[in-house]
Each structure stands twice: as C-alpha cells, then as structure tokens.
C-alpha cells in the first residue's frame, strides 16, 4: 500500500468531508488514515468513475493516455479498503475493478503476430466512458454554479386585494346545449306528441305564458286587453289561439256579465282550490 506514488493531489475548493469538525480539503496521500475518516473521504466519491477520474488526474495525464497499470493498482487499493469497511458501494466498485483487471490482462498478453495495426485498444471503451463521465461532471458543475431558487434568489410576490374581485361565475349554457337537451329528452320520451313542439305552436305557448303571467298581476283582465292591435291580424290570432288553448286546459275562465257586454278572463277559481295537495 505504501507503493502509492507520491503525487501532488489536486486542489479542491470544497472540503471532501469533515473529520472531528476539521474540513478535509485534500484526498489522502498516505492511505494509512483512521478508518472513520477514510470512510468519509471514500463517500466523497460519487462512484467508481469519479474515483477513477480522480486517480487519472493525480497522474496528470489525459484520459486518452490512461496509464492502466498504475491506475488499476491504486484503484484496487481503495477497493480493498472499502471492502474492509464494508461500504455499501463496494459492489459497483467491484464491477469496475473487474473491468480494469481485464483490460490490464489484455494489454499484457503478447500480441498475436498477424494482427493488423487497426486492432482496437482494449482501453478504448473505458476511455470513451471516462470522457462522457467527465463531460457530465462538468454539466453537474454548471448546474451547481447556476443561480438556484431558494439558494440564490427567491420568487417574489406582492400582496394583492384583487382576489376580492373574483366573482363566482354562474354556469354557461349555449342555445345548442338547450336544443340538444330538448332533442334528447324528446327522443327518450318516444313521443307521439310531435305536433306540440314545432315552432308554430311555440308562439301560442309563449302567449299562453304571457297571459297567465298577466293574470297573476291582475286577477281579471278585459278580453280586449289581451289583444294588441299593433301586432296585426296574425298577432291577434296568436292571442286568440292562446286563450282558447288556456280555456281548453281549464286554466282560465272567460266570463260575460250580460249579453253583448265586455268579456273578461280570469284564472280559473273553483272548488278545486279546496282540493288538498295530495289529491
């Protein structure tokens, strides 16, 4: 373990961890450090790629020139310690260890003489992954440096009395909704009564409502008052039909005191007033 080459560790701005309140700014040169402190340091690596990248940087070489032999050796030293400490992460680190060992052994094997120059460097795949990982670490750094809500700024709001102006809006209905609803109800009813509903009847029905409404305000109305001559002949006919219909439905009474005197209409008032509701 003491074979670890003496190399200047990289300076890190942030402490790797805290040991008894003291920040640990550098990764250990000497691997013989108290296990509890080591645990903190090892946990500072976010994974085997992070550890590997750290080891390569300590060698001050480019990723492409990955010095597989010393790196594998140093990596194994860390992993052995992690195993001793029974760190949870060890499994992921072991996968990497196996990969490193495999690359190392392939590099050490004598090359078969007939192999052409284009033979793929066994390190290529690892180099590619390391580069991608390095790019992502850079991305993580950018995110960390980006202004963050809560940490660097907060979204502000002004008080507003405008909420008091919020109205409870009544539901909206379109004419189409109404027609559809009517169509549906009529379909359900399987009517034999189509003749009640077409538009010509409607105007008579509307006039019936109007006359009844008038009779709610005045108990007796002169027959002639129901007719508005400004409506023309056709209007008079509608009113007349409405009166006949109301009379037929026994909703109004038409009375005449003497022959040839004014006709009056009133709501029908008869003994049925007395009939109780459950009748």
């Amino acid at each position, binding site marked *: 373990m003491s074979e670890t080459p003496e190399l200047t560790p990289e300076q890190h701005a942030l402490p790797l961890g805290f040991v008894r309140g003291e920040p640990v700014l550098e990764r250990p040169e000497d691997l013989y450090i108290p296990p509890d402190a080591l645990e903190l340091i090892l946990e500072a690596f976010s994974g085997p790629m992070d550890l590997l990248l750290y080891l390569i940087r300590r060698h001050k070489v480019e990723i492409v020139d990955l010095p597989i032999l010393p790196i594998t050796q140093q990596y194994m030293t860390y992993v052995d310690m992690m195993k001793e400490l029974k760190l949870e992460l060890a499994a992921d680190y072991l996968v990497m260890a196996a990969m490193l060992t495999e690359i190392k052994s392939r590099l050490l094997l004598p090359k078969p003489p007939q192999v052409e120059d284009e033979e793929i460097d066994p390190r290529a795949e690892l180099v590619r992954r390391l580069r991608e990982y390095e790019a992502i670490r850079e991305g993580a750094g950018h995110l960390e440096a980006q202004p963050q809500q809560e940490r660097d700024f*907060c979204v502000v*709001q*002004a*008080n*507003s009395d*405008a*909420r*008091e*102006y*919020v*109205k409870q*809006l*009544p*539901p*909206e*209905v379109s*004419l189409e*909704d*109404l*027609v*559809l*609803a*009517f169509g*549906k*109800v*009529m379909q*359900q*009813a399987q009517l034999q009564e*189509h*003749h009640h509903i*077409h*538009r*010509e*009847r*409607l*105007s*008579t*029905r*509307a006039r019936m*409502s*109007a006359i*009844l*409404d008038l*009779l*709610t305000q005045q108990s007796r109305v002169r027959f002639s008052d129901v007719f508005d001559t400004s*409506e*023309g002949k*056709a*209007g008079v*006919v*509608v009113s007349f039909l409405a009166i006949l219909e109301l009379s037929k439905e*026994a*909703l109004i009474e038409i009375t005449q005191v003497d022959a040839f005197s004014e006709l009056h209409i009133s*709501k029908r008032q*008869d003994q*049925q*007033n007395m*009939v*109780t509701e459950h*009748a």
Partner: protein
Amino acid sequence: MHDQQLKQVIEAALFAADEPLSVDQLKELLAAQQVSKAKIQTTLSALQQDYQNRGVQLQQVASGYRFQTRTELGSILAGLWQEKPPKYSQALLETLALIAYRQPITRGDIEEIRGVSVSSQIMKTLQERGWVKVVGQREVPGRPQLYATTAEFLDYFNVKDLAELPPIPSSENAQQATATESTTAETATDQRVH
C-alpha cells in the same frame, strides 16, 4: 454598504417576505451592515416615492411595510384567479329545455316526459338564475304550478322571443301546419314573454 445597495436589499426583502416587515425587522436583517433605523426609514420613504406611479406600491400597514398591487387594478387582476364557470347537469338542461319549448308546464308534465322526478334543487336553481318563473297554477287537483321562461332567459340566449329559439328538427307534423299557424309564426317575433 452604499445607498443604492441598501435600497436594493430592503426592496428585495420586502418583496420576498411573506408578511409585512417592520423597521425593527429590517434592522435585524441588516445587523451585519449596522444600518440605523433612521437610515432604514429614509430608504423606505425613497422606495415609496419610486413606486408612486407603478403597478405595485409600498404601503405601510399595522405590522410594517409591504408591497401591494394598486387598488384600481383589482378588477382586471381578479382574472388571475378567476375560475372557469361550472357546468349544469344534464337533468337541469333537460328541465330548462322542456320549460322553454313546452311552456307553460308543470313539474308533473316534466316528470312525465323525462320519466324521472324533477329535483326541487333544479327548479330552485332555475328560478334563482332568473330564467324560469311561476306564471300560474293549473286548475286540476293539487293546483300544480305552471312554469314559464322569463325575459332574462331570452336576454341570456340573445334572442328576442321564444319563436327565435332554434326549431326542433324532424317533426312530420310540421308539414301539416296550417296557413294560420304559419302566419302566427311571423308575428311571434314581436312578442315578449314577461
């Protein structure tokens, strides 16, 4: 800390805080900068001045200072929280349609046609909305109330009278309509239901 910085901090703090901030609270926030209360007061006045004609204003309330939106803008800003109007039930729409097209009509008639009982809540809603009213009683046992639509109903649907409501399609009887009846249809446009 120079004046502009101090103003920025106080301004940001007032906007960021959930509650109004008092001069004492601001002084505490600026403890490290050792700013006097008088200085804070001057800065608050300067800020009030700055926001005089803006959409938000610095207001002094019982518990301190806070930014709030200009009162005159209330009705426009209410739109920020305005929820979509709810929807009426199919039962209500069918009841309303029956009253519109078959008025004057009793609750019993509606129930007979729809085959289900009409809830009092629906009749209450329609009357509260001002779309439906009682225009009389049918002189039969029980004297049931007769319902009709109102002028507000016509106004809401932007039609002059009931005859302007879309006709219900496909009635064979339409062909049987007499000359008289089609004449009445014309006049019907003048009439208002009260």
